[in-house]
């Protein structure tokens, strides 16, 4: 075999090969960066637009030829946005609903995922499959019926109605179950041998190991509270019980009922800011959590 050795190398001018490969490497890098920056600009443009729009006057916003930078910067839009929409109360509501529903949701999700991942019972797989099937139904169709249900329970205008109906997410149970399944069953058996209770095992072993998924569920849940719009509007008649996104639509109409878009954009910016900040600080956890939960899909 040695006689047949690949002889291409000798035929080429070695230096040329070296230079060529370096150039192609650099070229690929440049192309790569150019592409990535282009995408980054495309991704960022709408946010840029949101911010400059929020600083324009209504007249400038409505100009037929949109301006790329406000001629006159109107910071007052932000003050107006905050004052007009009772944002303080809405912030408070959103935070309360977000935190309580996240905690309860985590507990329920962890327990169910544990049952599906580690316990053996009749009909487990059938039940799990049935749950997964419900994920495919357009959720909007539930609204009418759920509205009737909560009205019958007399839950309207309470935090309960904002929290309870959405506590269980089949998707989260699914994510966490997948994550739990990654944890070797030997650990559970070992814990059983040591006489560790299920709850203790969950708390001491499963939860720490599944932390990234739990964090991503937390974030998704918080984001859900932050972005929910239709439901709170439907089930609250007291403006002091609404959530933050509801504040975006209501308060920014001028005399004739026409929306004052710059102020609305300012409100959107105010409302988005906390999510942005949370994301920037917890970026690592969020991205790790979301991606890890995805990989196991």
């Amino acid at each position, binding site marked *: 075999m040695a006689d047949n050795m690949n002889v291409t190398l000798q035929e080429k001018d070695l230096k040329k090969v070296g230079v060529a490969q370096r150039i192609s490497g650099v070229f690929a890098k440049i192309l790569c960066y150019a592409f990535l920056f282009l995408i980054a600009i495309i991704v960022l443009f709408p946010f840029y637009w949101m911010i400059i729009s929020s600083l324009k006057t209504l*007249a400038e916003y*409505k100009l037929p030829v949109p301006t790329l930078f406000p001629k006159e910067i109107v910071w007052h839009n932000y003050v107006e946005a905050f004052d007009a929409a009772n944002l303080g109360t809405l912030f408070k509501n959103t935070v309360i609903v977000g935190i309580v529903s996240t905690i309860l949701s985590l507990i329920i999700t962890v327990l169910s995922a544990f049952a599906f991942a580690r316990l053996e019972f009749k009909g487990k797989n059938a039940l799990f499959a049935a749950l997964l099937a419900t994920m495919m139904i357009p959720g909007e169709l539930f609204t009418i019926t759920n*509205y009737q249900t909560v009205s019958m329970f007399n839950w309207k205008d309470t935090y309960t109605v904002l929290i309870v109906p959405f506590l269980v997410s089949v998707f989260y149970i699914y994510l966490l179950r997948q994550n739990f399944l990654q944890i070797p069953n030997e650990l559970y058996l070992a814990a059983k041998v040591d006489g560790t209770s299920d709850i203790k095992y969950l708390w001491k072993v499963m939860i720490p190991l599944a932390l990234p998924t739990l964090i991503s569920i937390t974030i998704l849940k918080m984001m859900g509270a932050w972005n929910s719009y239709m439901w709170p509007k439907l089930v609250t008649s007291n403006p002091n019980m609404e959530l933050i996104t509801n504040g975006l639509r209501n308060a920014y109409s001028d*005399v004739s*009922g026409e929306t004052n878009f710059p102020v609305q954009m300012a409100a959107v910016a105010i409302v988005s800011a906390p999510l942005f900040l949370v994301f920037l600080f917890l970026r690592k956890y969020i991205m790790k959590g979301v991606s890890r939960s995805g990989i196991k899909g």
Partner: protein
Amino acid sequence: MKFRKILVSVLLVVAMLTSMLSLFSCGGNKVAPEFKMPENGFDISKKVTITFYHTMGANLREVLDAYIVEFNKLYPNIKIEHKQVGGYDDVRKTISTEITVGDQPNIAYCYPDHVALYNMSKAVQTLDVLMNSDKTVKDALGNETIIGLTQEQKDDFIKGYYEEGMQYGDGKMYTLPLSKSTEVLYYNKTFFDEHNLQVPKTWDELEALCAKIKEIDPDCIPLGYDSEANWFITMCEQLGSDYTTANGDNNFIFNNETNRNFVKRFREWYKLGYVTTQEIHGAYTSSLFTMAATEKGNSYMSIGSSAGATHQRPAKVNGAYPFEVGIATVPQMDANNPKVISQGPSLCIFKKSNPQEVLASWLFVKYLTTKVEFQAEFSMASGYIPVIKSVKENPIYADYLNKADGGDFITTLSVKVGLEQENAYYTSPAFNGSSVARDQVGYLIQRCFVATWKDSEVDAKIKAEFDKAVKECKYQIGK
């Protein structure tokens, strides 16, 4: 053991589901009974709370709050809770869902099609028994008045607005108007004066005028018309042709020769570059109207809501408006028998099992719609047209109207024009599907204008579009 556990759990689930089913399905008729006037009329000693859904912005809510205080001086036992529920569509959606569980408010901002929708559930209280009642009530200040409306009060309403409450096909009164707007013709007065142009009173005059303006400025679109649907409906009214009817099996009767002809005519205008509409232009046509005349594609007339007057005013350049805006009644088929659309919210009252609540709601509705000071202040704050004529005699309001001009007080000017054409307001029938018809005729105009057809096939194509619109309307209401 095993099987028992499974059995128990299965039984539990079945029990839960059946109990839920029975709970919901026994719901059946959740609608409160028709109101019957109590023997003793309104009881001012019992506390009642009534809720009011509207779409008022912050400045209008201030006006409302101030007058609730006034109202409570008369009826301290009536507590009014009011809430801004987004826009008109949000009000409709919220209430129609709430009706399904009998949770609707007492009073709401409404458009005729909303009432038609609520009426399917028989949830709206007819006002006849209330407004015609001659039972009296003694308020906290000691004045004794009848619960209903006096003939004087009824006559004070602008006729077209008042009749909107009775267009549901059964002759009953369902709503009272609160504040209204209409469509008006905004024109560039400076330009008109400069070129000695006459404000058009009829569509024929308008057509000639457009041709003239095109000669002066070939790069312009002389007229912008914001609402295609309004245009269609108003034309039906002006021509006396069929649009819709609240009665019978076939509600949608707008597919007729007359209507196809005016659509064809306006399509030609569009193709000549005389006119554009909001949807076709891609923005309110006021943006064309307020554009500098030197720019390509500007317009010199705009037909839009009287409530949007400030948007029809050009931005100041060096502290002065570049041109003066004039406002006139929209063009007519017959200038002597004008017809203009009426828009803006009315108030409806929902049935409740407690007649005192209904009575309290009525007293508040009556107060808001007939109180001159409230109507005046609300009009000044909103730029909407008051619904009663006597407002004009209010000295503050008269002062306000006197300020009307085509610059700083353009809103006032639009209100003034709206009040001057008080005899021209018409209303169209309201029924389940009236809003569908409205949407569809708007789309119809858009489609006909934009499409490129051979001259020879235009008639057939327009006919096809009309057929399509009617078919769609029928489908949408489940027929």
